[in-house]
Each structure stands twice: as structure tokens, then as C-alpha cells.
């Protein structure tokens, strides 16, 4: 039986025969390791004018198992400047028989505001296949989206996601010659066809018979593995604004111009700031302003139209005491400039994994804004970076969220400068601990711990300062796995922006474990590694370690007077390309024991063949960190 699919805005018409929807017609090799197979996946993005673009999609996908359910659902986002039309959604069973066609009422429409945002005009239209559907089934869906803004162009992933195989996919890009649309191919080894009319350019990419791809732990991001076509405009329109994105400088100029329109800080406030910072040098002024920002503002994200790129004005932030990263950064910049300190609005891509900006392809690759203040700080730093959205972040410290990456800095004359944010290598992220344990005759132990963290390693400890004294104690006891210990004192200290330290004194009467006539004790009291990477056989991707660190620990133990040492573990040493580990315990001249430990995990990219060693390394470290020593009574 033949039937016709719905015709789209720009006629991609074809005939789909029921045979093709039947599951058994999918080549077997495509089904291996796939949770779904894209039978036919076609997309088209046509820029008609600077204020009109249309995205059309037609997708026929067979869902083999539950894991891929989402890729067979209809989900499309829109906002004030776009409209979704002509939604068609059909489900076929494994014999190619139509079992359901979604009607208009079934397609849900709701606000799509992320948890971090208070308000935005983002909405989503969606329809999900019923919960109790029988697998496998095939979905055929199509829709189009009309855009009035031409700043952000879609990126076409031929395989849609991981664990999805492909029979056939095509993507077409058409734009008026005068608007000079741009594109970049990623991992694409298919057919490209270019054509043009008198007014427009058209490119079509086709790919077929692709097996499913899969991400691996510590591997590259999916965007780097999957074949895709990335698009970007040259000239564009965003609400009432136009710009040129074909060069990085063009983008910087656009952002700069958006910021120029903003209402400045009230004059009285500027005067007040000048008065409050009178006599201070630039660094002191910066510290003062940053403290003022943290004490008097809070993060509120409102993204509406151009407000996604243009901040609230400094006047507005000052009036309401809130703003998002753009607004708070620009506000801080204005405050600093009011007291004579230069500061620059800088875009970054924030996230715990530092990404690399693709310099070849100017496009919006950013999601956050921070502030660059070109000052040297106590001979430790030559640049001060400020995170303006946090009420608690240490001055001039960038955590893993924005460290180790390139920032897009916009100077006051609109000129762009690429600058590296705080660069923390493995030996910068150091934790040094010194512990002494003293036992009395009743086997009560007094434990003195001193832990000093640097750079990114401060993140693990610095949260303690925001807890109540009681909660601090509970957290420390839980971390040491000594729930019954008594906390005598806790002292926290910050030295400079990149250091954080802890001094704690605890007492415990069950540190020693009695087994028969012996007593055991784990000397590594406060640095027990517990994370082991997941097992992965037949690894093919390189290992990406984004953050390296170093731990240097020593524990001196004064054993109970009535005991002597029965057994100590052998020293251990591991050396690999990605890290090293040493742990040993020896007896000192004064009879005390000294346990020393060094763990170094490097950052970088390492060949896949190292994964077996990588796993073995962390297993050994975890096991070795919990090795016991044995004591026996010499006197009853």
C-alpha cells in the first residue's frame, strides 16, 4: 500500500512505502549496539531574508528499545521570535501498520524555563509516545519552525545522538548570496552537493549507512565524535538589532554596541563610591567594589529576546539589586570605572569541563560572562578575574567553572582580545596535609589534622566556611569515617585568593580495631581516595583528564605506650604517564611511625591504550590508602 507523507513548506516530497517502515528491512549491522535506527532523517534550513529563516525536519526513526525513547518523541523549542507549524506525528508498529496519529490537542505546549532562570520567553511543544508501547516501533514526524531572528543557526547531527544508527540522512542549507551564510563540517565523510541560483546558494549534505556511535567515560564530548554540520550567519538580525558574525571582531563589536546603550549608574552612587574608596590603591578599590557587589546583589536570570545578549543596565541592577551574569558583570565594571579602575567584559564557555574555542568558526560559543581587571595581585597573579554572580566566591579566584580556558575579552574601544583565564596545572592544585595521632594508655587518640589546599583543590574544602560550627564538625567526622569522634576545635583560614586551609583537633576512643589479640589501625587518616573510573573494555577514544591534582600527606603516629608494632605494610610505588603514587610507612628513631603518601594525577590527553593501567592505578591507590598496620600488647 502506498501512501504519501505531508508536504512541507519547501516541497521535499517523496513517497514512503509501508515496506520501509517494517523493522525487518533494517540492515542487521545497523542494529548492533543501537537503541534506535534513523531510517530517513531530512532537514532543511533556508534563510530567506535577514529577518526570516525556516527550519524544516522530517524524521522517520525506529525505536528498538526503551533507552532511545526520547529520540522518537516530538520536542521543539520556540520563543517570541519563532513559530512552530505543521506538526505531524505518526507511530507505526513493527509490521509497518499505523497505530496512532497525534492530533492537535494531544500536542502539549508549555513554558520551558530552566531552574536557574526566573523568566524567559522559551516555550516547548512536545508529544511523547505512550508509556506502554510495544518495542520496536517506528515514528514518523515532521514540522517546521519559522524564525524572525537570524543570529543562531541550527547544528545538524546526522546521527541525532549516541547509540543511534543511520540509514539515510540529508541536510540542506540555502541562503541569499548577499547574506553570506557560513558552515563547517565535523566528522563528515558523505556526499556534498553545491548549487546556486542567481540570488541564493544551496548546499546539500548526504550521509548513509552509519553504525551507532557511543561516548566513553573520560572520552571526547559527543559533539566532537558525531558527524555534524554547523551553520552560522555573517550578517544577522536579532530583534531590533543587526550585526555581522563573520569575524570574531564583528561579534565583539556587536556585543560592545549593545552594551553602549545601557543606562549608566546614578551619579550620586558614583560619588558615594569615590568617597568610600578615597585613598585606596587600585587593588584595594577592586576588593572593596567586589565585596560591595557580593553584599548587595544577587543572581536573578531573566532572558527575554535581546535580553539574552544585552544585560540589564547598571542603573537597573542598582535599582533592583539583582541581575544575571551579564548584568552583574557589567554593573561591577561600571562601579570600578567610576573609581578609576579599568575592567573588561569577558565572555567564556563555563562548565566543569574546559572547552576549546573553535577559532576557525566565529559563532556564539559562549554561555557566561566574567570580568577581567588588569591588575597584579600580590605577586601571585598578574591578572584579576572576577566571578560576579557569586555572593561567596573568593576575590580573584575562578573555580573549575571558568578556569583553564580562553576568554573573549572586549575592551572599552570595542576591540577583542583572547586571553587565557587562570591556568591551573596539576601541581597548582595541591593539597598538603600533616597529621599527628597520639594515643594514651586508655587507647584514646588525639588527632591533630592540618590540611592546606591550593587553587582548584580549595573547592573541596572551602564550602565548610558556610556551614554552622556543628555542621562543620559533622561533615569532617563523616569525611574521616569517625562518626563517634569528638571534635575539639576547627579553624578555617583563607590565605590569598587561591589558598584555603583547615586545622582540626579530634579525639576518638575507637581508632584502634581489636582483632583477637592484635590491634589494627589505618594510618592514612584523612586522604583516602575513593573514586575509581568505570570499567570499559575495548576502549577506542583517547582519555581526557581535564583537571590534575597533587596530594602530599604525612601522618606521624605515637603508638600507645603498652603496645609495639607487629606488622607494617610494604612500600608501594606506581608510575604511569598519567600519574604517580607512593605510600610508605617507617619507624622513626623516637619510636613513632611516619606514614607518607604522594598522589599525582596529571591533566592532559592520553592514548586509549592506557585505560587498563588507568583503572588499575586507581584501584591500587584506593586499596592501598586503606592498608592497615598491626600492633600488639607488650604489657598487659
Amino acid at each position: 500500500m502506498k501512501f504519501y507523507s505531508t508536504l512541507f513548506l519547501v516541497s521535499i516530497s517523496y513517497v514512503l512505502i509501508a515496506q520501509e517502515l517494517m523493522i525487518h528491512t533494517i540492515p542487521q549491522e545497523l542494529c548492533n549496539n543501537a537503541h534506535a535506527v534513523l531510517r530517513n532523517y531530512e532537514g532543511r534550513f533556508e534563510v530567506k531574508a535577514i529577518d526570516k529563516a525556516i527550519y524544516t525536519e522530517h524524521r522517520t526513526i525506529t525505536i528498538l528499545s526503551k533507552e532511545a525513547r526520547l529520540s522518537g518523541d516530538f520536542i521543539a523549542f520556540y520563543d517570541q521570535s519563532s513559530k512552530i507549524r505543521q506538526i505531524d506525528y505518526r507511530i507505526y508498529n513493527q509490521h509497518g501498520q499505523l497505530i496512532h496519529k497525534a492530533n492537535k490537542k494531544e500536542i502539549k505546549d508549555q513554558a520551558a524555563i530552566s531552574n536557574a532562570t526566573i523568566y524567559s520567553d522559551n516555550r516547548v511543544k512536545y508529544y511523547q509516545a505512550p508509556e506502554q508501547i510495544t518495542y520496536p516501533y517506528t515514528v514518523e514526524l515532521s514540522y517546521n519552525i519559522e524564525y524572525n531572528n537570524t543570529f543562531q543557526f541550527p547544528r545538524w547531527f546526522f546521527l541525532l545522538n549516541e547509540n543511534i544508527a543511520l540509514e539515510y540522512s540529508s541536510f540542506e542549507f540555502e541562503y541569499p548570496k548577499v547574506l553570506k551564510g557560513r558552515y563547517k563540517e565535523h566528522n563528515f565523510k558523505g556526499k556534498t552537493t553545491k548549487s546556486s541560483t542567481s540570488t541564493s546558494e544551496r548546499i546539500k549534505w548526504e550521509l548513509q549507512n552509519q553504525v551507532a556511535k557511543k561516548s566513553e567515560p573520560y572520552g571526547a564530548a559527543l559533539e566532537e565524535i558525531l558527524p555534524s554540520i554547523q551553520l552560522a550567519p555573517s550578517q544577522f538580525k536579532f530583534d531590533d538589532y543587526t550585526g555581522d558574525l563573520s569575524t570574531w571582531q564583528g561579534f565583539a563589536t556587536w556585543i560592545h554596541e549593545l552594551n553602549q546603550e545601557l543606562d549608566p549608574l546614578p551619579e550620586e552612587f558614583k560619588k558615594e563610591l569615590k568617597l568610600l574608596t578615597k585613598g585606596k590603591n587600585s587593588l584595594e578599590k577592586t576588593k572593596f567594589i567586589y565585596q560591595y557587589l557580593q553584599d548587595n546583589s544577587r543572581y536573578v536570570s531573566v532572558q527575554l529576546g535581546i535580553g539574552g545578549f544585552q544585560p540589564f543596565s547598571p542603573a537597573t541592577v542598582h535599582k533592583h539589586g539583582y541581575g544575571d551574569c551579564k548584568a552583574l558583570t557589567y554593573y561591577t565594571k561600571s562601579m570600578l570605572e567610576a573609581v578609576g579602575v579599568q575592567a573588561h567584559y569577558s565572555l567564556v564557555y563555563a562548565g566543569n569541563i574546559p572547552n576549546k574555542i573553535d577559532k576557525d568558526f566565529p559563532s556564539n560559543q559562549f554561555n557566561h560572562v566574567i570580568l577581567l581587571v588588569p591588575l597584579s595581585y600580590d605577586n601571585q597573579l598578574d591578572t584579576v578575574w572576577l566571578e560576579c554572580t557569586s555572593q561567596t566566591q573568593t576575590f580573584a579566584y575562578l573555580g573549575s567553572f571558568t578556569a583553564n580556558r580562553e576568554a573573549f575579552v572586549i575592551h572599552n574601544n570595542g576591540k577583542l582580545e583572547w586571553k587565557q583565564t587562570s591556568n591551573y596545572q596539576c601541581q597548582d592544585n595541591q593539597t598538603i596535609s600533616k597529621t599527628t595521632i597520639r594515643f594514651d594508655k586508655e587507647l584514646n587518640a588525639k588527632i591533630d589534622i592540618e590540611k592546606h589546599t591550593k587553587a582548584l583543590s580549595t573547592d573541596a574544602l572551602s564550602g565548610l566556611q558556610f556551614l554552622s560550627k556543628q555542621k562543620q564538625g559533622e561533615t569532617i567526622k563523616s569525611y574521616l569515617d569517625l562518626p563517634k569522634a569528638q571534635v575539639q576545635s576547627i579553624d578555617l583560614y583563607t590565605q590569598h585568593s587561591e589558598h584555603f586551609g583547615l586545622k582540626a583537633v579530634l579525639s576518638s576512643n575507637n581508632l584502634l580495631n581489636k582483632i583477637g589479640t592484635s590491634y589494627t589501625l589505618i594510618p592514612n587518616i584523612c586522604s583516602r581516595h575513593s573514586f575509581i573510573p568505570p570499567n570499559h573494555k575495548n576502549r577506542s577514544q583517547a582519555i581526557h583528564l581535564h583537571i590534575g591534582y597533587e596530594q602530599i600527606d604525612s601522618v606521624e603516629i605515637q603508638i600507645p605506650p603498652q603496645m609495639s608494632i607487629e606488622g607494617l605494610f610494604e612500600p608501594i610505588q606506581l608510575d604511569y604517564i598519567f600519574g604517580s603514587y607512593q605510600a610508605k610507612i617507617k619507624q622513626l628513631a623516637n619510636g613513632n611511625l611516619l606514614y607518607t603518601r604522594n598522589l599525582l594525577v596529571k591533566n592532559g590527553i592520553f592514548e586509549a591504550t592506557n585505560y587498563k593501567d588507568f583503572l588499575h592505578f586507581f584501584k591500587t591507590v584506593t586499596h592501598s590508602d586503606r592498608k592497615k598496620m598491626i600492633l600488639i600488647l607488650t604489657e598487659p
Partner: protein
Amino acid sequence: MRIILITLSCLLLNNYSLSAQKAFAIGKLSYKDVSTAMCSYNPDVPAFFIKDYGETGISPNRKIYLRRIFRLKITDKKALDLANHKITHPKNSQISKLKGCTYNTRNGNITITELKSENIFKIKEDKDYLTQAITFPNVKVGSVIELSYEVEYGTYTHLNSWAFQQDYPVLYSEYHVFMPSFLNYQRSIKGYIQLQKAEIKEEAGVWGDNSLTTNHHTYIAKNIPAFVAEPHSPSRVDLLSAIEFELKTVDWPDLSYNSVYIPSNYGDLAKSLVLNDEDWGRLSGKASWASKTLKTLYTAEEKDKNKAKKIFDFVKTFQKTEEEHSNLQMAFKAKAGTDDELNFILILMLREAGLDAKPILISTRSNGRINYLFPNVRQFNHCIAYLVIGNKSYLLDASETYHSFGVLPEYCINDKGLIIHNGPETWIDLTPYQKSKLIVQSKLKLNDDLSLEGSLDLIRNGYTAINSYLHLNEIGKEQYKKNWANKHKFWTIDEHTIVSKSPSRSGEKISAAIENQVEKIGNQIYLNPIFHAFVEKHPFEANTRTYPIHFDYPETYTYSTKIEIPDNYKVTNLPESSNVSLKGGAATFFYKAGVTGNQIELNIQVKIKKIEYSTEDYTHLQEFFNLILEKQKATIVLTLVP
């Protein structure tokens, strides 16, 4: 399930409105009020409510309204996000009197910043709901925010409930209700906080040309602690300090008019549903539309239980829908239905097969416990089937695909359910039919090179099996095995097979080489013989306990392991045996390690029989788990034979 909606729109409520003169105005706090406000009983808290005021009454356009005014102080940066407040309401409910302000104190002065329209964003959530997203201006540590609003919300049958307790401490909570005195409400006070005041006063009210008395309720609670969830406790609904209302009687001024029926006991409630309710009326007919299908499911000679099983399995295959069908026959034809429709179809088909099946109304766990004293149909939120064959009874829920015959979904296990029949008031215990067990059997060999290898068999029954099955079904076998491997990173897994005989009985076999359980120091080996613990972490670490302790279902954990040790080693230390029991055998723990030849044998059994405990039992439960964790850490010592 359709709730009996009592409409009082026939009431002539012209020019009627009841509202308080008690509500406080926004923006009137002094410097002292703001700067000295503190939560003395919990000074470390990041925010607290200074005052929380609520009111329910009838607005001039005859709708029930809810008015709320609160004052909140933020004392730590962590709680700054409380200055973002969202009010979600039905699109058709009017929201009015939306006012607010922020107070700040500095250098002896107070500044008040008013909430403006530019701080309020309206979000159209979907076709039915709107959200007012409010962001208070100028909020910092030490600020007090005030918000007031009134929204058309509530019904005459259950007004608006009020929570005295919040996620932050509340220094003072006050709730008023104004209703004509001919409407009498049953009040249900939930939670563990004593109210300072709970009174109803008669006051004058105006009804069109008549004057009728108003019942003015006042409820006050002070110094309420923040609600903090505790592990293994009853549902939040039962713990949070709150008040709920249910219409009990309508003493209509015109005695001849009586369009309202409110049952005086649960027996009457059940009868009334059977006799008067349209939805429940669907159960009164016969299921002739199913008779043909029934003939295909079983033969007349088969035992009743088998017939019932087959009918049950058949209905379980139906699709679950959110929308009701116009009648049960349509649902049957479509092989689809809502939860209630599926169970109704089940009951009708069982009856058609000549079996004794009745519907039971229950309240699921998260919906809270039923108040047995005060009949209220709204307390129920789910319907299941009660089948009696001979002297055995079975509880069935056809709305869940994976539960076998007689095994209720866990969320149904919530004390008792009410039989809906034209008969005496009957409550049925919703107790688990099958025993839930986890049986672990392992056999391992410690080699000369101190590597440990062998296999582990896991056998699950009852809810232990069902939960594992549901999880397996959710993520698939591949991901399940991956997760297992990730949880046991020191195991090099050779083979992992999963066998599910039925959702209530499953088995797993893992053969692996295991590291990290053996440590050699000098000529001694320390071996930990636990390869699948009962608990990883102590469930009750907090020193104090406010709420009762509830476990999900009675469960038994049986662990046995046999470990063959090398010939040149001898066991020189075994952990001591243990055999403890909580009062009345509520929970028991048995641990025994032994050696036979060159084989170590360890047997452990943990039985949780009783699933509900009072706070007085808390310390005993803590000690119980302390002992289990201690024994799980215990090592066996082997010494090299000279």
C-alpha cells in the same frame, strides 16, 4: 475517581462576602522590628518566617478565596533565592491584592523598597495554569521581605488547607476561616505541632437581605521548627503540621431543601457511592461485553484461582490512559483505560466468571494515612480489587503491569482500605501477600597468590524482586550490568546472568575475581568475608528523631558464604557470633562464622518483621544497625602455618 462535588451555587449569595479585618498591612515594619528579628530556637537557620498569615472566605463574586501574607527574614547568603517566589494558579482564578516590599536596615536607618510590576513576570505554564514569578528587589543578607496576595481558590467541600509548618522555621502562623454557620466542617489537624489556638466564634454576617451568622475560625501556632525530612519515615503529608477541612453537615436554613449528602460514617459513605454515584454505578451492571473473551481465557473445569489469574493477566495488558472512556465497554474494546477503569473492568470480569470480587478504596503511601474517624471520600486516591476464593482472599491491582497475582504495588501498602459495597463498614488490611527476601549465596576460593575468585548467587522474592525488576525494566539489562560493575569496581566480572522467573522471583549469578577484600601484612592475611552487604551506610545517624520510623515492607536478608583457603594458612581469628533481637522479635540479627577443614563458613540473617516503630524505639534501632555495620566490617585473620 470522581469526587462527589457538592455545588452550593443555588445558595442565594448576593452581596455576600466574608473577610477579615485581621489581615496586616504591607510596609509597616520599624527598624527595630527588622533588625532584631531572629529565630531564637534555631539561630543557625539561613531564613525564617517572622509571620505567616492565611485566610479563606467567600469573595464578593461568590468564589472561595485564599489570602496569604507572609514576612520572611533572610539571614544567610544561601537563602537569597527565597527572594524569588512563584505562585502557580489555575488560569481562570483571579489573583489580586498582589503587593510586596523589601526592608533593609543600615546604620540605624530602615529603607523600604516596594515590589513593582517590573519585578513580577507572568508565565503561561500550559493551557490551564499561570505562574506569577516574583523577584524581590534589593534583597541581601538581613533583608525582610513581605508579600501579600489573594487568589480565587478552594471549594465549599474542602475549603483551603493551611500548612503551619514550612521548610524554614515559622515564628508565628495564623489562619482564619470565614464560612456561613450553616456549613459545618470537620477539621483534621495533622503533624506534631501543638496549636496555641483553635477556636470557632460566631459572628454577624450579611446575606443579601438577610442576616445570617458566620463561623469565624482562628488557628494560631507559634515557634514552629522547620520541617526536616528524616530517613525511613511516614509520608510528608502525615508529618507536616497543617489543618484540613471537610464539609460534614449542611444545616440549610430552608429545611425542605436538601441537595447535599454527607455521610456520617464510612459505611454510609460506601453505601452512598454504590447507590448514588454515577461512576460507581458502572460497577452495578454485568460485563456481558466480556463474556466472549472470558471463554477464550479459561475452561470451565479450571480452578477458580487459575481463572482469576488469567483474567488478571489479561486486564494487565491494557494500555493505561489519562482520559476516561465514555463507558467501561468502550474501554474494554480499546483495551485501554485509566487506573480505576482497569480495576473496574477486572472486578466486573471476575464477577462475570462467577467469582466474589469487590472494589476497595485506598489512600496510597504518599497520599497519607486515612483518618478513620471522619468519613471523607477525598482521602482515597486509588481503587483496587478484593477477591475471595474459599477461605483465602487476594488483593489485586490491574493498573500495574509487573505485579503478580495477589501482590499489590508497594505504594498501596498503607494500613487499610475500605470495601465499597452496600453492606457493613469493612476495612481490609493492605498487607503484603508474599514475603520479601534477598538470599545471597557465595562460594569463593582464596588462591595461593591471594587472589579471590568465585561466584555469587542472588535470589530475590516479593518486593525485593519487584523493585529490582522494575529497575531492570527501566534501564535495560545492559545498563543494569554496567551499573553493577561500576558499583563493584574491584570485581573483574567473568559472567553476569539475570534470570527473572516472574517479577516477584528473580535470580542473578555473578562470577568474578574480587580484589580489595584481602590484605597481607607480614605472615598474616586479613580477609573481609562480606561480598554483598545488607546496608552500605547506617540509616539512622542523627542523634535525635522527631518522627516515627516506617520501613517499606517486611524483609529478610540471608547471607551465606563459603571460602576455601590455601593449605598453608590457618584461621587464627574469627569474629564473634551475634544473635540479637529487638523487643517482641520486631527485628532480628544473626551472625556466625566458623571453619570446617580448609573452608570458612559465614552465615548472616537480618529479619525486619515489624515495619512501623515509634520514636521511643529509635535508639534501639540505632544500636541494631550499629551492630550490623560493625559485623560487616569484621575481618577474619589467617596466619601462615610455619
